[in-house]
């Protein structure tokens, strides 16, 4: 990459934009007993902050450092296992 110019490109990496979880006003909370392990939340999360862990009691893991609290996971959850609560 050219070092002689100031270029409009960047290298994406985790946390390069800071801890964007601080933007959140509502937080998604998972009720694991209602979770049917469909992975819809993982699929729809626009920030890729949801991990699913096969064989675990806590199948859905949300990284709150970067979750902005948009609520899409809660919307798409078919059993309402994810609910948005105030911070």
């Amino acid at each position, binding site marked *: 990459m*050219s070092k002689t*110019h*100031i270029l*409009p*490109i*960047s*290298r994406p990496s985790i946390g390069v934009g800071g801890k964007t979880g601080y933007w959140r006003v509502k937080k998604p909370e998972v009720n694991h007993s209602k979770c049917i392990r469909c992975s819809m939340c993982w699929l729809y999360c626009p920030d890729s902050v949801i991990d699913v862990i096969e064989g675990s009691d806590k199948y859905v893991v949300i990284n709150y450092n970067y979750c902005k609290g948009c609520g899409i996971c809660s919307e798409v959850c078919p059993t309402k296992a994810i609910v948005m609560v105030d911070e």
Partner: protein
Amino acid sequence: MVVKVLTGNYAVAEAVRLSNVDLITAYPITPQTTIVERLSEYVDLGVIKSRFIRVESEFSALAVAYGAALCNARVFTATSSHGLLYMHEMLWWVAGSRIPIVMAVVTRSIGPPWNIWDEHSDFMDHRDCGWLMAFAEDNQEVLDTTIQLFRITEDERVYLPGMLGLDGFLLSHTSEPVDVPEEHIVKSFLKPRSQPYSMCGVELLTLGNLPKAEDHMMMKYDIQVSMENAKKVIKEVDLEYSKLTGRGYGGLIECYRCSDSKYLVVGMGGWVGTMKDVCDDLRDLGYKVGVLKVRFFRPFPEEDIIEVLRGVKGVLVFDRSVSYGSLGHIHTEILARSYRLGSRPVIKGIIAGLAGVDVGVREFMNSIVGFVNEVEERGYVGNYSEWLLPG
């Protein structure tokens, strides 16, 4: 070296054939059509190994060229008039991304009313996008400058796209003998494709993210610095090209009988040839007139022009385009840049030849003689900007 009889458009196509282009993409529009028609024939016949991508619009043409160029391809496209206007946003994307691309702009009026004839408004409409802007006087210069532009745009001191203007029909569809350099000469002249970064999916990069305002402004400043650097690169490249082919154009401007002239006529494009003929006639009649040809409009050759203007009594600028409510584009530049001169010449601008209206020897002769006589008699002119209207 082979001499071929070529139209301006075929001269562009020959230059692209010689320049080892990876990808050609364009949407046809009069008077540009025969450039891509010829290139698509070359691709079809296997004369060149380039890929040809057909698109549904000019916006897509430059978007496709941009995408390919981002991944290290040397690309070429061409357009005219409304096609160029349709590309407008993409021109900013390409320049802002610092991606070298070469485009031919076969100049044509902008409607309404519908008109396919020559003027420079389409070209000038894109003067602020960050593209290098060259303009050719004849078909030989069309071929040579197209080749030179690949080299200039891919120079690491520049890394900006470049467009070559040529007058619709006056050059694009008029045949002239053109020296076509040997393939190996062009190959040695053009180095392998070079660009500031490449996005081929190998390295993880994002383009065009939202930066801090401070970073964004520094990127804009970097374009300005590179434009300034391009002045040196253009001269170097022209000199090197002249050593290989015997043809140089003086870099950013060409001066014709300027050295001892009291009056200068300034122009850009095909009609500069006519100006030179008129200049010869006027010299025979005792008028000390020279012609200053603007070869590069961006970067604008301030320093070179200042040098030529020093000591001159009067300057008559012909523009084939106008910024409505203001002046001709070259006239504006000459006025602004000459402010640096301690003692300035009388500078007058003439808007002529819009919509393809013919401007020939008689029109130039009358305008120049009228200007020179007025300055000689009064030391100033009554009208600093006027339109040479038809009829």
